């Protein structure tokens, strides 16, 4: 299914905002950056939070996946690149 370029961009912007909101709710007081790369459904998230303290990388990434899991499961997000940093 092909999507018109203008529509894809608009949709991508909304998705980026949606994911940023979800992550900000999940990491109150943390720093959240979300951007898209190579297409609107490929997202990159950078999260700095004190919730990561003392946790392994995989536990940290699971914490980031949890609030957006439903968007990955239904295919809205095709790829989510994650970078975490404990504060």
């Amino acid at each position, binding site marked *: 299914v092909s999507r018109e370029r203008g529509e894809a961009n608009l949709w991508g912007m909304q998705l980026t905002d949606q994911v940023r909101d979800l992550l900000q709710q999940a990491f109150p007081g943390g720093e959240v950056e979300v951007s898209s790369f*190579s297409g609107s459904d490929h997202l990159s998230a950078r999260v700095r939070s004190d919730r990561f303290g003392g946790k392994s990388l*995989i536990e940290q*990434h699971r914490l980031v996946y949890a609030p957006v899991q439903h968007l990955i499961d239904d295919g809205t997000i095709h790829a989510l690149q994650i970078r975490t940093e404990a504060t």
Partner: protein
Amino acid sequence: MIVTDDQIREEILETIQRNRIMLFMKGTPDFPRCGFSARTVQCLDAAGAEYAAMDILPDPRIRQQLSAHSGWPTIPQLFIDGELVGGCDIITELYATGELHQKLGSPMPERKIPTLHISDKAAARIREYTQRSPGKELKLQIDARFQSSLGLAPRQEHEVEVEANGIHVLMDYSSAERADGVSIDLVESPTGAAFKIDNPNAPAEIQQLAPRDVKALLDQGRTFVFLDVRTPEERATASIPGTRLLDQAAAAEVEQLPKDTMLVFHCHHGGRSQAAAEHFRGRGFTNVNNMAGGIDAWSRDVDASVPRY
């Protein structure tokens, strides 16, 4: 034969138990079907890992059952000693710090110390920044696509440290591998002075060719390898004369070609072919091209007799 969900689940669990290092991916290590799987394979290969791999693409239930077991939503997934270690981002990060070698039981990598060149102007500007940010050090990062960035951040473990023109630069292990001979300069631009990072190790960029340009090359009789990255089913629906399906046999043959052979990739809309192009660029090919817009744009702009789907 009908395979049940339970059988797929059992096969997954069994293969995780049987293989100490087990990778679930899209495609195969020789021919990854996704950029994230490709990068993970590169890290494992570079760390000298002996590993088994399973392609999740042939049946969507493999991915469903795998994710149900691991609680991890994306592909690839790497298991060591039966435990999920992570996906592409985590493996890339573990590789960069050397921890992947430890987990795999590979000998720790020798830290090659790259040589950097920093111009006087750039050094002066960097000094201004570092003096204003106590506790932070200059970091140079070069990713797998050879995109470079400079930043200030606290020192971390396992970093490679280099001195150039009186400036200390810290790099993770992967960046250091790609950094030998890099020069950093400060250049004036319309928006102010900016750092310019030149990397002699960066392979040539992937060129985006419009379908009309590809057609012109064909008409001029230019020789190049024109590869179709789609599935055999899509190819049966519509194909471009002169192309070859990039299946595993074709991928193995292409690997053997001289590295300056011109390669052109296409798929339906240009996304999968870009991933394939990046894979072969990563393997050292220097003339790698992606047909922008894929066969869909070809039907629209070059040959309307090729059906759109």
